[in-house]
């Protein structure tokens, strides 16, 4: 039975129209919204006008002159790119049952915004303007250095040249930029983020879905940071092949706990971070030697296996054969008798995700199922796949959220541990040889999250 975390009456379709100068974190916010809504099973897609310019309109790696509003030739190309992006967006709404589209572009003039507004309304789509406004120079410079290293526009270009060119590009936009006007635009639905949520202005939010997006965006920041994820060290139940429980660590698990500070230090350097654990003994024991502030979260507790808590997969298959099969058939929705499903975990993780977005450097020590859900959120892993991801014990995962994706590094502790991975259709744990070499499913070292395919 499907359960919805966010409701959507069929007739609501929203186009989030980004507004703001370059290097204000617009793409980052757009990507985040798409990821969040997809995680909640809402059809969402981002239409990045820059991509259309590069791929279809013949504007690859242009220099700042290209963005001069007096440059008629270039302006035509840019105009063409917007038109294509918007046409694609409309097609997506109508043919693919889209619910929330993000139009990621500067949309810097009021004329352009009126044009989009009219187009949306004519197609029964409600536009919501989302402006990122920033005059904090530090923040802008940090963003620029991020963009020049990750934007396709500056691939292979000397960083210094790129920075100079990018600053020039921004100044071209500044000459025509008209920020949203709280008086003049008071009848529109809009949100202004001023210096990244230092101040937030929220105007005329009229549907629940819109309020949900605003709520999420309010929790975002664009300061660079990293998130480290780790399962607890090998537990006694892991060794005994039992699921759930509240057992202590095995000797090897304790060794991992002793080694963890060094692993973290190697990856994080001197930055300060906060450790979050669940309330179960094994995560606390894993965190015991870490020299950082620690917080316990009930919401990080492992998926509750209900009556199967403390059983091995073999026992479950024997005692509850139907359940065992039902779970393999739809692992995301399957709810253990008296326990939880993956979807239940996603719902209760909401405060964690929101708080995680607000914080800076965090190390989370939690459990397999919970970690899969959190990982799926950051890496845009589709629902059908996420419960089957392999997240081995004694491995520290580092996530670095970036404007165009999330970087992942996996650091192995080289302390042996049992495998708790169970493939579909078997009650045996352990990864087959095939699985170990197939990095496609585990998205190992330094991959970037792909765009979510249309579903």
């Amino acid at each position, binding site marked *: *039975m*499907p*359960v*919805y*975390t966010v*409701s959507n*009456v069929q*007739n609501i379709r929203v186009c989030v129209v980004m507004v703001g100068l370059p290097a204000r974190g617009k793409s980052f916010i757009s990507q985040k919204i798409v990821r969040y809504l997809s995680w909640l099973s809402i059809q969402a897609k981002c239409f990045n006008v820059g991509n259309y310019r590069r791929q279809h309109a013949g504007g690859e790696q242009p220099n700042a002159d290209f963005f001069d509003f007096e440059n008629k030739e270039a302006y035509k190309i840019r105009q063409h790119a917007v038109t294509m992006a918007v046409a694609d967006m409309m097609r997506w709404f109508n043919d693919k049952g889209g619910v929330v589209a993000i139009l990621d572009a500067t949309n810097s003039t009021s004329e352009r915004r009126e044009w989009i507004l*009219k187009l949306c*309304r004519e197609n*029964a789509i*409600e536009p919501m303007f989302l402006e990122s406004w920033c005059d904090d120079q530090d923040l802008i410079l940090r963003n620029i250095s991020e963009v020049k290293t990750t934007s396709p526009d500056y691939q292979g270009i000397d960083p210094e040249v790129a920075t100079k060119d990018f600053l020039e590009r921004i100044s071209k936009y500044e000459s025509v930029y008209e920020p949203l006007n709280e008086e003049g635009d008071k009848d529109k*639905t809009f949100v202004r983020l001023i210096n990244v*949520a230092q*101040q*937030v*202005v*929220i*105007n005329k*939010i*009229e*549907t*629940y879905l819109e*309020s*949900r997006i605003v*709520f999420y965006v*309010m*929790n975002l920041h664009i300061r660079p940071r990293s998130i480290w994820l780790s399962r607890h060290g090998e537990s*006694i*139940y892991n*060794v*005994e092949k*039992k699921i*759930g*429980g*509240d*057992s*202590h660590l*095995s*000797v090897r698990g304790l060794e991992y706990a002793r080694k963890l500070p060094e692993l973290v230090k190697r990856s994080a350097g001197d930055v300060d971070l906060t450790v979050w654990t669940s*309330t*179960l003994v094994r995560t606390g024991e894993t965190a015991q030697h870490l020299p950082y502030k620690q917080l316990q*979260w*009930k*919401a990080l*507790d492992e998926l*509750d296996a*209900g*009556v199967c*808590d*403390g059983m091995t997969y073999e026992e479950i298959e024997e005692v509850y054969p139907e359940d065992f099969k039902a779970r393999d058939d739809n692992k995301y929705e399957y*709810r253990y*008798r*008296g326990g939880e499903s993956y979807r*239940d975990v996603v*719902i*209760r993780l909401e405060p964690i995700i*929101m*708080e995680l977005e*607000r914080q800076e450097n965090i190390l989370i020590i939690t459990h397999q199922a919970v970690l899969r859900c959190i990982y799926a959120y950051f890496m845009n892993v589709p629902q059908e796949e996420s419960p089957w991801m392999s997240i081995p014990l004694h491995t520290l995962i580092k996530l670095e959220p970036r404007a165009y994706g999330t970087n992942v590094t996996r650091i192995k502790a080289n302390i042996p541990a049992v495998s708790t991975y169970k493939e579909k259709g078997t009650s045996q744990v352990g990864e087959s040889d095939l699985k170990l070499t197939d990095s496609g499913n585990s998205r190992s070292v330094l991959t970037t999250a792909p765009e979510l395919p249309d579903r």
Partner: protein
Amino acid sequence: MSAILSDDDELFNGLGSEEVITKPVPGNHMARTRKRWSSGSADKRPKIVNKLIDGVHTDVATDYISPGQLYSTESGRLFHAGKILIVLVGLPATSKTLLSVAITRYTRWLGVRTRSFHVSEYRREKARTEKGGVPNDYYSAKPGSQEGGNYRREILRKMTKDMTEFFDEKRGQLAVYDALNILKEDRSSIEKVFGKMNIKVLFIESVVTDPLLQKRNVDLALKSADYKGWALQDAEQDYMSRLKANKHLYEEMSPEENLSYVKYINFGEKLTVNNNNYGYLINKIVFFLMNLRDKRGRVYFARCGTSVKDKYIDDEELNEEGLNYSKVLTDLVLDLVNKRRLDANDGTSAVPRTPSAASLKERSKSPLIATSASLKRTESTGNALYRQPASGDGVDDDSFVVWTAPRKRTYDTAKYFAELGISVRQRNQLQQLHPGVVADMSDHEVKEKFTSEYQEYLRDPYHFRFSRAESYHDLAVRMEPLLLEMERMCGDILIIGHESTLRVLYGYLMAFSCSEIPRLTFTRDELIEISFGPFENKVNRIPIVMD
């Protein structure tokens, strides 16, 4: 503990290594004992469930578990949010009391121990128990006389004491302080006093610039406890003098004050959030404020009609009796809605009593009497200048929407509404509590077949789940979006649902505890009408009389 290893084992694991567990210990010897709940819902039997009283003002017990709570903690505080004091700021007639009550209701539902402290209650209590009455200039934020000043200070002292006690001794997490606080000095002293106690202070300033809204707020204030038994004119005069005494003193909040605050303009039309670094809980409250509306309509609850077998698994259509019930229900609800519209038109409403040609046309299409809002809606349809009506149910004061579950019986019960052109929405969240293995069993059968589970269920009917089933708590969590949408709806909503879903919705609107919710009853011979007041919600039970 350690075992002698074979040579091969020792070589493989390292010389001198020990194996921790020689033999796996059978059974669940290290079971997970801490559940997501630290206490159940049934350890305390509710006293008498008086279904007509809004529970939002009753104190929460120290071991309180709320209906919508996702987990519980030892400290009783959630989200690592610490202790927070919300201070309302604004002139009289800016919905401060409504806001504080609404925030209390919602955060309590989330599991936060919240209490609102209303200055008006303290003043009334003081006036009731002390001789001398309230000094004339008490109602000014800056009374001219010493007497008036003292009176204010005494009340403030008592309230500060109570709020401190709430945080320190009653495990309180969120206090809402409902008073004028329109002076900078008042605000900065509150910030200092509570800041010292390590309590975060967030100001919510309500500003009303819309004259219609202002008038409505004054009208509501005149119905408050302060003016019980007053002649309308006298009450109005008195209230206006309170307003006047403060208007020129009012110092609107600005970033220069260096406080964390939310400016809430014209009841949520616009919100600005400043220096909010308080975390999830406060953002969640802002989220709630985005959805809160000045609700002029009512929420109606009705059961669905009957079917032949009345079984969960069948998803049957209505039988004759059920269809008949649907007709009677349709007429009854439409009559109630129309009657209120007529009454409103009698009063000072902007709608002329003699309908214009356009409204007559509107009327011929719809079984509902047209209002100014419905006329405006007709105007905006197809006009790119306005948001389109379809873009949000319940945006207008006079909207009327029927929500049903996605099951045949429930949406068939709404079919006569649909035939009349009224919006009927199937809401997935209204899917009834999934009964799991005990579907369609009588209590007796359940007791026979699932003896031990049944005992557990009786101990905690709110949180207990039968195999495959949902608990009331599961239901409450999955229905949360619907609660906020319900808060959003300005107009009327009729919710036709299964008893289990009605219990949860009703439990939220009337602030019931989780021990009470599973015991609420809704029958087919009563329509429940809930109306919204700034201080509390009211219930009216209207008989459904079958021919």
